[in-house]
């Protein structure tokens, strides 16, 4: 049957999670529950130095005094933090130099994802650090990076091998007590990635990490720290997908970026966690704190394609501390069925001549709710600060919602802040036009959505853009044929 709005709705509702599977890699898992002993045990398990243990305990004590925030435009059953296991690691955890040594089950997992390591290796210049259930199991291209003095490893390894760097920067952008989820993450983070680019070095390849959640009932608390020293450049890719299951899974990651004078960090994310089924059951809760700090003339770009999770709470932000620094935020957020996303950014202008750009594209289908929440703050010292924000929403059907909450606080008269917002709907006429040219409804929707998202897709590194485009199609794919 050709397209009607009802068909479209039906088709979107019946979309199933394509990447649903579960990998049973032998794991060692802590019993459920959280207290100071658990925090100490995590630290011990990871062989951490005392300063790190103390830092975690401090965070944990803050966390106990804090309350889960409720201001976001999302509604969900609060997780029971005592009913979560805070540590889970694959029992075989050697580092591989070679794909042949990797657990075949893991390789198979990646094959089913369509992002096999084989394939990834072929993608020229992509180094992959896979975080599987909290512990890195494979790291590639390390040697090439080492020659340039670039450090790219798990955060646990960095704590042991490069304590001076970690100690200096961890918590410097997202302090332990920043917010409820950040405090929790600081107390119990199990692993994550660390990256350091030395002065003046241009990282020769895209650094890529695939995160996955893999144990039933295991919260995932990743910690990422990227430091770009003066005049350096790095492009960092983060991509995720998780097994399909019925149980809510909590994810509370923290990502900190530090761009020192004249440095540039591009941070791209494709997020595709299990969004729950078409009844709104299950799915990942994704409460992420991502923030970057720009020193003089530095630049940080966040690009994200968010298609998964039942509930997303995420505001990649930039603190434009140094004069002439630049912050950018490019985002595509897709929600379908009963998904809820409250996402956006904060641009904090502290330095003079600082510039920020926000391009947000929200696509809502089914009965989902998609909110953009952005803060542009221009402080009194930030002469000639500039911001341009554009928030576009695309709606499919009549049951979903798109909301825009732009907050502007300008304390400097020379500031110039521009905000544009549009809302549109995929029209029957557009679909018929495509159909008439031989393009079926499913493909037509993909085409229209890709067109709508183009400004953001263009910001992704090539190979990632292709994957993201595929993901958009899958997220909105139905059973019409």
């Amino acid at each position, binding site marked *: *049957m*050709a*397209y*009607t709005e009802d068909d479209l709705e039906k088709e979107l509702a019946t979309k199933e999670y394509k990447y649903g599977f579960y990998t049973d890699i032998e794991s060692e898992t802590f019993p459920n529950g959280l207290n100071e002993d658990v925090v100490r045990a995590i630290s011990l398990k990871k062989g951490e130095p005392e300063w790190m243990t103390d830092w975690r305990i401090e965070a944990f004590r803050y966390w106990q005094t804090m309350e889960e925030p409720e201001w976001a435009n999302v509604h969900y059953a609060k997780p029971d933090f005592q009913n979560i296991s805070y540590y889970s690691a694959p029992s075989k955890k050697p580092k591989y130099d070679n794909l042949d040594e990797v657990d075949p089950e893991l390789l198979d997992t990646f094959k089913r994802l369509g992002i096999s390591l084989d394939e990834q290796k072929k993608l020229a210049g992509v180094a992959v650090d896979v975080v599987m259930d909290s512990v890195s199991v494979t790291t590639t291209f390390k040697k090439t990076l080492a020659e340039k003095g670039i450090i790219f490893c798990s955060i646990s390894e960095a704590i042991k091998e490069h304590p001076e760097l970690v100690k200096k920067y961890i918590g410097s952008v997202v302090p332990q007590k920043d917010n409820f989820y950040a405090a929790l993450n600081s107390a119990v983070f199990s692993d994550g990635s660390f990256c350091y680019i030395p002065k003046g070095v241009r990282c020769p390849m895209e650094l890529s990490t695939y995160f996955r959640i893999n144990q039933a009932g295991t919260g995932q608390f990743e910690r990422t720290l990227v430091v770009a020293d003066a005049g350096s450049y790095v492009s960092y890719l983060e991509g995720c997908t998780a097994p399909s299951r019925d149980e809510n899974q909590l994810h509370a990651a923290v990502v900190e970026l530090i761009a020192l004078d004249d440095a540039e960090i591009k941070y791209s994310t494709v997020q595709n966690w299990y969004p729950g089924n078409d009844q709104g059951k299950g799915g990942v809760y994704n409460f992420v704190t991502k923030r970057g700090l720009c020193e003089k003339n530095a630049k940080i770009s966040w690009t994200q394609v968010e298609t998964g999770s039942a509930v997303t709470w995420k505001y990649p932000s930039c603190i434009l501390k140094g004069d002439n620094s630049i912050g950018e935020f490019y985002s595509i957020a897709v929600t379908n069925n009963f998904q809820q996303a409250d996402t956006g950014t904060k641009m904090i202008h502290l330095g003079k001549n600082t510039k920020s750009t926000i391009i947000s594209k929200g696509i809502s289908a089914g009965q989902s709710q998609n909110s953009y929440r952005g803060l542009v703050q221009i402080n009194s010292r930030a002469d000639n600060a500039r911001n341009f924000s554009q928030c576009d929403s695309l709606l499919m059907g009549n049951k979903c919602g798109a909301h825009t909450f732009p907050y502007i606080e300008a304390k400097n008269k020379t500031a110039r802040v521009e905000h544009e917002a549009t809302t549109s709907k995929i*029209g*029957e*006429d*557009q679909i*018929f*036009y*495509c*159909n*008439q*040219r*031989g*393009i*079926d*409804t499913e*493909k037509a929707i993909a*085409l*229209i959505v*890709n*067109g*709508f*998202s*183009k*400004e953001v897709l263009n910001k992704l590194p090539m190979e990632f853009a292709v994957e993201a485009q595929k993901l958009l199609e899958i997220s909105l794919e139905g059973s019409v044929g």
Partner: protein
Amino acid sequence: MLEIKNLNAGIEDKDILKGIDLKVKAGEVHAIMGPNGSGKSTLSSVVAGKEEYEVTGGDILFENESILELDAEERAHKGIFLSFQYPVEIPGVSVTNFIKTAINETRKAKGLKDMPASDMLKMIREKSELLEIDRKFLSRSLNEGFSGGEKKRNEIFQMAMLEPKLAILDETDSGLDIDALRIVSNGVNKLRSKDNAVIVITHYQRLLEYIVPDFVHVLVDGKIVKSGGKELALELEEKGYDWVKAELTA
């Protein structure tokens, strides 16, 4: 090629097409004229398979098979093309990307592989030259910000790329300046052959000086009330539709 038999169609409770009969053979050009709101665009939409309209009676045969049960894209795959009276905008999708997708989806439906990029480029070059289209134009978003005439020219460009068996041109001439009208008509004429057919819907005799029809039909209130040769168009231009209507009631 196309045979429309006693076609009745409408929307909700409103009958728009009230018993249309039309036979178009390969190699022929038919013109359909008629007053505003008489059902010309509705007829082309129904032939192209727009679901919004309900067919309440009659049949449409394409190459001797009923196409009533086919989706719009399946009809397109069979070689039916409609140049829209009001082409729609698709922001962010370039003309090139759109036509590439259209061609490859049509090929896929026929069990063929994607057209090799080099062939595609060659074809784009040829057809854009034929229609005197600046290639920079092809990287713009489909119909977004196009002038009326540019939209129509772009429709014919797509037709040239898709090489349909049956092309229905719904008021392709309106909005075209004199030069564009000549260029577009030349384009259409170059694509004519003994194996394909064209239906032109127009209000103006001038287009028919360029694309010379074998038959002219007059559609009034959902019915074809008069058919004739190309001279009928001249007569209409001279006497207006009241003449036909008067003849009807006489």
